[in-house]
C-alpha cells in the first residue's frame, strides 16, 4: 500500500514535469509540440554523453545538458514552429518531423541499445518497510520543487503575468504591448528545460534509447486532455491521477495493462468531458 503511494507519486512527478511544459506551450501559442518528447530524450542522452564520454560529474553534466536542450528548444521554435504557426496542423507535421530527425540522429550516433544515465543517489532508502531507490525519491523531490517554482514564477513575476495574459486572450495581450513572440520563446525554453530535467531524473530507472520520446508524448497528451488543454493546475492533477492509476493497475492487475490506462482515459474523457476536469476552456 505504502509502496503504491510512493511509486505512484514518483511517476506522477515525472509525468507532471512533462505535461506542464506541453500544456504551457499550448496555452501560450495554441501549438501542440510533438517534439516535446525529443527534449526529454535529448536531456537523458546529453547527461549520458557528458558523464560517460566526457567524464564530467553528474550535476554539471545535468545542468549543461538542460541548457543545451533549452537552446535546442528555442531554435526549434524560431526556425520550424514560428513560420508554420498559421496552421495548427502544419505545426503538428513539422514538430513530428523534427522529432523523427532527432530520433534518427540519436539512432545513427548511439545505436539502438539502451544507455545508462547515472543516478545522483545510488543508495536505497527504506520508508516504513518499503525499499525505494534514491533516484526515484530524488525525481519526486526535484519534480515537486521545480513545479512549485514554476507556479511561483507564473503567479508572481512579470513574465508569469505575461504568460497568463497571453493564454487568456492573445489578442488583448498584444494590444497591451506584451511581446508575444518573445514570451513564446521563453515558454518554449521553460518547457524544454522541464522535459530535459524529467529525462535526466527518469534516466536511471527508465530505458534510455532513441525511441524513448514516443510514450512520453502519448502520456503527456492523455494528461493534457484529462486536465484540460492549456490548464496548468489541471495537468498537475491529471498527472497525479494518471501516475497513480497506472501504478495501481500495475500492482493489482498486471504491469502489462498499464499502457492501456492512458489511452482509455483519453478516449473516455473526450467522450464525456472534452474540456477537461476543470473545464476552464471549452474545447476550442
Amino acid at each position, binding site marked *: 500500500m505504502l509502496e503504491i503511494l510512493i511509486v505512484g507519486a514518483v511517476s506522477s512527478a515525472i509525468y507532471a514535469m512533462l505535461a506542464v511544459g506541453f500544456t504551457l506551450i499550448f496555452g501560450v501559442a495554441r501549438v501542440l509540440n510533438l517534439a516535446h518528447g525529443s527534449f526529454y530524450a535529448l536531456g537523458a542522452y546529453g547527461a549520458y554523453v557528458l558523464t560517460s564520454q566526457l567524464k564530467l560529474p553528474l550535476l554539471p553534466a545535468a545542468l549543461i545538458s538542460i541548457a543545451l536542450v533549452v537552446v535546442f528548444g528555442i531554435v526549434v521554435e524560431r526556425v520550424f514552429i514560428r513560420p508554420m504557426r498559421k496552421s495548427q*496542423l502544419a505545426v503538428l507535421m513539422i514538430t513530428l518531423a523534427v522529432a*523523427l530527425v532527432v530520433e534518427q540522429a540519436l539512432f545513427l550516433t548511439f545505436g539502438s541499445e539502451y544507455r545508462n544515465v547515472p543516478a545522483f543517489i545510488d543508495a536505497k532508502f527504506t520508508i516504513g518497510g518499503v525499499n525505494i531507490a534514491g533516484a526515484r525519491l530524488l525525481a519526486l523531490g526535484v519534480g515537486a520543487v521545480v513545479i512549485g517554482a514554476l507556479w511561483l514564477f507564473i503567479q508572481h513575476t512579470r513574465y508569469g503575468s505575461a504568460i497568463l495574459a497571453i493564454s487568456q486572450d492573445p489578442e488583448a495581450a498584444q494590444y497591451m504591448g506584451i511581446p508575444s513572440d518573445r514570451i513564446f520563446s521563453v515558454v518554449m525554453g521553460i518547457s524544454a528545460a522541464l522535459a530535459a530535467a524529467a529525462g535526466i531524473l527518469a534516466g536511471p530507472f527508465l530505458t534510455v534509447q532513441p525511441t524513448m520520446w514516443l510514450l512520453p508524448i502519448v502520456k503527456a497528451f*492523455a494528461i493534457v486532455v484529462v486536465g484540460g488543454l492549456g490548464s496548468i493546475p489541471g495537468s498537475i492533477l491529471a498527472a497525479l491521477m494518471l501516475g497513480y492509476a497506472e501504478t495501481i493497475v500495475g500492482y493489482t492487475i498486471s504491469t502489462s495493462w498499464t499502457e492501456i490506462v*492512458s489511452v482509455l482515459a483519453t478516449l473516455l474523457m473526450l*467522450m464525456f468531458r472534452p474540456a477537461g476536469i476543470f473545464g476552464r476552456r471549452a*474545447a*476550442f
Partner: protein
Amino acid sequence: MFNKPVDLAGAAAFVALMAALPLVFPSNYLIGVLTVSVMYGIWAVTWDFMSGLTGRENFGHALFIGVGAYTAGFMNTTFGFNGWWSLPASMVMAVLFALLIGLPTLRLKGPYFALAMLSGSVIMQRLMLIFWESTGGEEGLNGLTPLIRSQVGFYYFALAVLVAITLLLMALARSHFGLILRAIRGDEATCQAAGINVTFYKIASLVISAAFAGAGGAMYAHYQLQVSPQLFAVVTSITIITMVYVGGMASIYGPVGGAILLVLLTELLRNFGEWRLMIYSCALILILFFLPGGLVAPTWRRLRAAWLRRAA
C-alpha cells in the same frame, strides 16, 4: 471523372506503364519493389481521401494498416481461414477501430483527432509486444498463406485493387459527398450553419479510408507472409503522410504517384542503409517549407494545361 480526354489518356498511360514494367524487366526484385509501391499507393490514397479532403490530419494511419494485417494474420494462421476471408474481415476490424477513435474525437475541433490516432497506433504497437503469447511479440505472426501463388499475378491483383480504389475514391471526392468534405476543410462552422451534419461526414470519410487501408494491410500481410508490430510504427504513418505531401494533398491521384515515386527512390537510396529514415524526415521538412502544394499533382496539372493550350 475524366473531364477531358487528356485525363483519361494520362490515367491510361500510367496504368499501362505500371502494367508493362514487369513484362519489360522481368526480375523478381523489380516486381517486389513495384508490389510494395502499389501497397503504399493504396495507403496514401486512403489517407488522402479522409485527411486531405477534410483537413483533419491522421497521424496514425498505421493503426488501420496494422489492425488489418493482424486480423489477416489471426484469421489465417490461428484460425486457419482461407486467405481471401482476410480482406472483408480486416475491413470490418479497421472500421471498428475507426469508429472507436473517430466517434469521440471527430466531433471536436482542434488537434484531438490527430493526437488520438497517433496515441492509438503507439499503444497498439506496445500491446502487440506486451501480449506476445498470442501475438508473437517482436517476431509477429508467421506462416500466412499467399493469396496468389505467382508473384506477377499478385502484383497485377494489387495494381487492379489500387486502380479500383483510386477510381472509387476520386468518384466519391467529386460527388456531392466529396464536395461536403472539402467544404468542411474550408469552414466547418459555415457547414454546420448550412445544416450539414459535419460529424457524420467526417466519420463516414474516416470509415471509408480505414476500410480500404485495412484491406491494404491484409494484402500486405499475405504478401509478406508475416505480420510484425513494426506495421503499427509511427514511421509507417509518417512515410505515408510524406508520400501524400509529395503527391499533392487532396488531389487523390497525386498521392498514388507520390507513393510509387518515393518507394522507387527509396530503393535507390538502399545503399544509404540506416540513413534512409533520416533522409525521409529531412525531405518531409523541406517539402513542408518549400513545396507545400506537393510535386506530382502540380506537375500533372502543368503538363495538362500545356497540352490543352496546344490542342486549342
